[in-house]
């Protein structure tokens, strides 16, 4: 691995120590583990494992390994291992590589959990974990403004879809009566007839379409290319964006077959596929072009999941694998090009074939698979796509047409991305003089491209190991599996294939005039991306406006709002319960009671009417001490003592604070406050009357009276309750006391400097 003399000095492979190697080993071990399950799953068995999670809610940590989840798991862990190996060199010496490896590994594990989960809630937990970890990955270059913005955009779009998804899952669990996915799938047509079918479908599709970037939620995906290239290779080939596809596939047996399912998936899938391949051809940045072809692949997969025929399902399973292999390889190749030359501009690059021969061959092989040339796996995938499209019962011409146009455009894009940079003569000097990448960065593209070629030559291996079990998971019967063949005889798919080659080569030959035409056409379309920014700006303006209106900064307003809320709550309660009897029995009142009431009234009146703060505080203290006396008269010494002490402290505290305030204004009659205070007082009185009109429930009182001495060795019931019977509550309360004191202390300390 001799590094070229230029500044493109390729970093030493495995340059991050054990932090770089450990995740690779972990991912490879996971891959090996999943691979060992292949024979059993290929033989038709479904592996399960489960542990209780929240038994009271019927939730369990249930894992299910069938053809579909195993295919995904192998792609995730296998490509994950190669990408981690690649990153270790690509980002060698990066000061935050440990963080990067952690994010990427966490993302990989979340993805694996997502595809293996057999419980709706568990599935959702992993779904959200992939959202968060992908946010961290997309925003990894967090010093760059666009990187942060795009990461946030991806997070918002997918997390908003995630909320809809959660609602859909809850409805689904409710409708099916269980959250166990395998049980739900076994229910067959019952769900489709359920009254909640349509809401469930709409909500689940919202989650899947945002995650898998279907039109009109597609705009976040190309922006997510702000991430380092290995992240793009991982997120946009086999994982993140395929999560939505996985969900659709997983739910296919339970939800597909209705008109809504068929038309929504077919139309949105077809529109996404064609629209994205046009956008892909328009790009000159290699990575952006690949990002749009990912959209095309997702659209095609969605399109096939809309159908039910065995051909469509086989096409889905095959294309899923084909796409993951060539897309990851090409992303990694673009990363190599970028690293070696310092640019990803298609118009600048040229003549790299001589300097980077291995990369060039890997790129060519992967691109041939992408373009669908025989004998590569992509050819078989394409034949099956046509067979699947022709098997569509409703609109075979429309579907086949969409597939044809997008496939031809794919061929052209494959040429632009993986052929031209290597084999056309260089148009000018490059930012750096290129050299071959180190082995760690080459192994990924080489292995993935080689797999695409091998499986093309020996399709029956792939068929038995992965495609057939996946189709069985989707259709429930091995009878629907169609064979993967390199040569299927002269038939309609072959004719369409030939048309694709002609059309695609034409697109490639004239891609530059096409590009400018597309550029002109698309620049007239409204940009969803700009609309997103306007939407966020509007949201922020709305938040700022409502904060200005609600948060006035005046304590009086906050207190008014608080007490008004209490009044409304209490009044609503009184209304609901009916008015209590208003007659008050005062026959037992002694002169002590009358004197106490007079004292309280006088204190309250003085508080409200006084023109001096200190007098008002003292009068408020009178009310507090009057309340303490009430407790003493009615035999609650503990409460009385506490009340007395608290009252003393409150007077001290309030006096300390209020005496620093300016003198009271002369004219301080506030009608609204007076009305609120009167209404609140009257309502509280009504509530008290209502409480007293009901007989006292003495069960707890009796229990504590009886148990206090024998069980807790205490005669002061109040204290025994506080420190023994309900000690946990008390502990919570004293924790709150400490937190309140510390917060107030911190608040007082920090405002010290602000005062003038």
């Amino acid at each position, binding site marked *: 691995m001799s590094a070229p003399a230029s500044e493109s000095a390729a970093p030493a492979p495995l340059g991050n120590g054990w932090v770089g190697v450990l995740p690779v080993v972990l991912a490879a071990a996971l891959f090996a583990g999943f691979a060992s399950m292949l024979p059993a799953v290929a033989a038709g068995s479904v592996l399960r494992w489960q542990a209780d999670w929240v038994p009271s809610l019927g939730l369990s940590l249930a894992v299910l390994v069938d053809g579909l989840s195993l295919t995904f798991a192998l792609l995730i862990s296998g490509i994950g291992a190669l990408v981690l190996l690649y990153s270790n060199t690509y980002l060698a010496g990066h000061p935050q590589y440990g963080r990067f490896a952690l994010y990427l590994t966490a993302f990989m594990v979340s993805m694996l959990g997502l595809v293996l989960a057999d419980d709706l809630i568990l599935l959702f937990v992993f779904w959200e974990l992939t959202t968060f970890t992908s946010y961290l990955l997309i925003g990894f270059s967090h010093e760059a403004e666009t990187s942060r913005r795009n990461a946030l955009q991806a997070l918002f779009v997918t997390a908003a879809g995630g909320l809809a998804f959660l609602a859909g899952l809850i409805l689904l669990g409710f409708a099916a009566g269980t959250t166990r996915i395998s049980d739900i799938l076994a229910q067959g047509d019952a769900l489709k007839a359920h009254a909640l079918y349509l809401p469930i479908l709409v909500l689940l599709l919202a989650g899947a379409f945002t995650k898998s970037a279907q039109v009109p939620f597609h705009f976040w995906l190309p922006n997510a290319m702000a991430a380092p290239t290995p992240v793009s290779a991982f997120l946009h080939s086999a994982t993140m964006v395929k999560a939505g596809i996985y969900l659709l596939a997983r739910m296919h047996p339970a939800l597909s077959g209705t008109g809504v399912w068929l038309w929504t998936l077919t139309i949105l899938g077809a529109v996404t596929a064609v629209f994205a391949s046009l956008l892909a051809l328009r790009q000159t940045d290699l990575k952006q072009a690949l990002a749009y072809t990912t959209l095309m692949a997702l659209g095609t997969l969605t399109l096939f999941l809309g159908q039910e025929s065995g051909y469509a399902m086989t096409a889905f399973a095959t294309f899923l694998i084909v796409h993951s292999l060539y897309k990851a390889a090409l992303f990694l190749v673009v990363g190599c090009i970028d690293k070696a030359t310092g640019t990803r501009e298609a118009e600048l690059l040229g003549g790299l074939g001589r300097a980077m021969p291995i990369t060039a061959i890997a790129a060519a092989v992967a691109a041939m698979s992408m373009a669908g040339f025989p004998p590569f796996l992509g050819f078989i995938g394409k034949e099956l796509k046509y067979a699947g499209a022709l098997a569509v019962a409703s609109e075979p011409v429309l579907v086949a047409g969409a597939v044809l146009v997008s496939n031809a455009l794919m061929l052209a894009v494959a040429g632009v991305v993986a052929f031209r940079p290597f084999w056309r003569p260089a148009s000018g000097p490059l930012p750096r003089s290129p050299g071959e990448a180190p082995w760690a960065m080459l192994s990924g593209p080489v292995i993935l491209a080689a797999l695409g070629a091998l499986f093309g030559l020996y399709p029956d291996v792939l068929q038995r190991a992965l495609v057939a079990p996946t189709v069985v998971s989707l259709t429930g019967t091995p009878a629907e599996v169609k064979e993967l063949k390199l040569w299927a005889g002269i038939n309609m798919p072959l004719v369409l294939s030939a048309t694709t080659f002609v059309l695609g080569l034409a697109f490639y030959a004239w891609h530059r005039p096409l590009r400018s035409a597309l550029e002109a056409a698309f620049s007239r379309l409204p940009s969803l991306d700009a609309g997103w920014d306007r939407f966020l700006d509007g949201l922020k303006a709305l938040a700022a406006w409502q904060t200005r209106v609600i948060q006035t900064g005046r304590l009086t307003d906050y207190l008014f709002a608080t007490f008004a809320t209490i009044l409304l709550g209490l009044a609503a309660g009184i209304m609901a319960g009916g008015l209590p009897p208003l007659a008050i029995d005062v026959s037992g009142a002694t002169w002590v009671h009358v004197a106490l009431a007079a004292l309280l009234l006088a204190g309250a009146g003085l508080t409200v009417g006084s023109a001096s703060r200190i007098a008002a505080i003292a009068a408020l203290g009178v009310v507090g001490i009057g309340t303490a006396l009430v407790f003493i008269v009615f035999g609650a010494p503990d409460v009385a*003592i506490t009340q007395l*002490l608290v009252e003393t402290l409150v007077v*001290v505290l309030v006096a300390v604070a209020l005496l620093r305030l300016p003198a009271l204004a002369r004219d301080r009659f506030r009608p609204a406050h007076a009305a609120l205070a009167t209404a609140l007082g009257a309502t509280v009185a009504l509530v008290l009357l209502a409480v007293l009109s009901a007989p006292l429930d003495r069960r707890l009182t009796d229990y504590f009276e009886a148990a206090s001495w024998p069980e807790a060795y*205490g*005669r002061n019931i109040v204290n025994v309750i506080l*420190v023994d019977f309900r000690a946990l509550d008390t*502990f919570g309360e*004293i924790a709150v006391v400490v937190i309140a004191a510390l917060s*107030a202390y911190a608040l*007082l300390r920090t405002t010290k400097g602000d005062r003038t």
Partner: protein
Amino acid sequence: MNSVILRAGTRYLVGLLLVFSLYMLLRGHNEPGGGFIGGLTGATGFILYAIACGTRDARAALRVAPQAIAVAGLGLALIAGLASALFGDALFTGQWLFLGASETDKGLPLSTVLVFDIGVYLVVFGSVLTLVFAMEEEL
């Protein structure tokens, strides 16, 4: 507040209030009192001291930062609650030891409940003083 009478009286009152607060704490299980009331009483003593002689002197007399006392109290209450786990009971179950108990006399009762109450006392005492000192000093 600069008053000779208050300062002179405070010297005796603070001691009395502190002793009284401990008395309230310890009798709490059978008579009116307890950690909450005791803590408030004790805090009142130091607040009186702070009003009479200033918070600087009051802090010096206390020696330890009041917020440290509050947090220590919370920790003590937590330990008292967790201790029951050592005896195989549910958390916050009171554990009792009757020192020198005989047929006729129950002896000296010691319990995790008392430790918990002391924790409450320290929390209330420390929190109130944290607040009052801060307000006196910063406002």
